[in-house]
């Protein structure tokens, strides 16, 4: 099976994919001094900001991310990785949406219109329909994209949902959150033409249960015309992977990991290759999107 994502074979590791043919860049990464044009608190207890970053917006793909400077002083030292929750090449804008979990994401809540922040991107392989022109899918009448999102894992999938829906794919989003307060706005998915089914663990919104409970009943239906992309906490990804074990449909997972550079320089963002104790992929450069069967989802990051 050769479903290509970007120019890299998904999860194939940097060496094989890059070759050494004279320094031609496979993609370009820009360090942009981006101005914030809007920032707001949106449903789900998350912040959302749009920034001016034409170079990044122009070359971005769904499920790519950016590395954001949160301080100009020596602390906090590292940049923070955030997925592109939306971007527009035409407008030259990118959008990130974040939960406040620690020091960096808290500093970012002080952004206001006009604030300038350094943003490095676009980063990662991303995931675009162009990449998965596998034979099976080409023959399908109406290919279907199933998105499975947990928590903030919903965010990066919107650009992909939009792309797919606009190309005539049938798109469904299964989305799970802890409780109503954490449920993020899914209306943009709906507007894009996507079917949205939500579950909360405590049943305060949508059906009661986990996102895998939503997925389970449809698994027997899945075949070669289907593609599944999951993004969320590792335990959720593991459950999805287990559920899908016997399905013919390819499953892709988008991973997170602790990062320093976000660009492949440091080899800090390792994730173990499935079934090989002595091989690692790098989430920032080989991923964040991997074929589920290529990575070990054993330990949490």
């Amino acid at each position, binding site marked *: 099976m050769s479903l290509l994502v970007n120019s890299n074979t998904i999860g194939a590791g940097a060496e094989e994919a890059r070759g050494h043919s004279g320094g031609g860049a496979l993609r370009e*990464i820009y360090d942009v001094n981006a101005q914030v044009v809007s920032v707001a608190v949106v449903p789900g207890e998350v912040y959302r900001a749009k920034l001016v970053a034409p170079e990044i917006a122009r070359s971005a793909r769904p499920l790519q991310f950016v590395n954001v400077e949160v301080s100009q002083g020596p602390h906090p*030292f*590292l940049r923070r990785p955030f997925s592109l929750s939306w971007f527009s090449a035409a407008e030259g804008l990118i959008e990130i949406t974040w939960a406040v979990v620690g020091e960096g994401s808290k500093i970012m809540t002080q952004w206001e219109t006009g604030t300038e922040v350094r943003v490095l991107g676009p980063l990662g392989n991303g995931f675009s329909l162009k990449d998965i022109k596998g034979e099976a899918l080409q023959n399908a009448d109406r290919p279907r994209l199933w998105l499975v999102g947990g928590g903030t894992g919903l965010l990066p999938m919107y650009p992909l949902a939009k792309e797919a829906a606009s190309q005539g794919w049938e798109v469904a989003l299964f989305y799970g959150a802890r409780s109503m307060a954490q449920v993020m706005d899914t209306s943009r998915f709906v507007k894009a033409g996507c079917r949205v089914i939500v579950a909360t663990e405590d049943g305060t919104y949508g059906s009661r249960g986990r996102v895998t409970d939503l997925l389970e009943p449809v698994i027997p239906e899945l075949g070669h015309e289907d593609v599944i992309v999951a993004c969320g906490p590792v335990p959720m990804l593991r459950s999805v992977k287990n559920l899908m074990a016997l399905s013919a449909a390819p499953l892709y997972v988008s991973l997170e990991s*602790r990062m*320093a*550079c976000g660009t492949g*320089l*440091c080899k800090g963002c390792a994730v173990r290759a499935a079934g090989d104790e002595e091989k690692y992929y790098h989430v920032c450069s080989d991923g964040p999107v991997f074929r589920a069967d290529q990575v070990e989802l054993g330990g949490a*990051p």
Partner: protein
Amino acid sequence: MGHTDLSLDFAGIKMKNPIAAASGVFGYGEEYSRIGDIRAFGAVSVKGTTLKPRAGNPPPRVAETPAGMLNSIGLENPGAKVAAEEKIPWLRQFGVPIIVNISADTYEEFSELGTIFKDVEGVSALEVNVSCPNVRAGGMAFGLDPRSCYRAAKAVKDAFGGTVIVKLSPNAADITAVARAAVEGGADALSLINTLLGMAIDIRSRKPLLGNITGGLSGPAIKPVALRCVYQVAQAVTVPIMGMGGIRSWEDVVEFMLAGASAVAVGASLLVDPLLPERLTRELAGYCAREGIGNPGELVGAAWR
């Protein structure tokens, strides 16, 4: 306010400017070529290379700390053969002096590495990493004890013949003794400092945060230790020094030079600010021009001379 010339001859390495990439934050340059211009560096030290390929340590491998970071990459690298046959030839095209950082568990391995890179075109120097805190066998141990350091330096020098830089560990109780031993063993230059051995604990899981438990501390937090090491070592030896540890501004570069470094390298800060070398070179030139300094070499060791 005359013209400032930033170039220098660092133990035979012709550097256009005194800003190098530290080992481990630049890989072999491929990733960097997609972000910035490799020609901005005065020299580049490639990822710590071992005889055999190494997969590296289990994740998580990085953690943020106050004004710094921990890493426990564990010398993930494709091994000397791939480095020599594929990586270096590719990197050579940029015309920037290449320093190959090597790591080993035994003197024999060090010697073998010296032999392998002896005939590789475009290798300006070997940097002997006697100070890596992230590998179990060997690694840092060579850098803590003057005798072992002497032997490691000698093994590489004898086999390689060309310029040998020994990279020192700040974890040594007396870094000047180790420095002198390295020079006696044949080091043509010294680079310092490597990371400090540290760790982080995750209070939620109540366990060490890094997969490898301990890791190497780098970034601005360690700058005072690095400056002290450079200041001490520069007075103890006559070979040139490449200073590093927390450099992220032109002021830092000047401080390291005043302490006694002829050249400097950027490590962790490159991960955060990949275009840093261009900025540092520009700002250093600006400073020199303002101060009427013809070549930053004039600053070297001024804090104690």
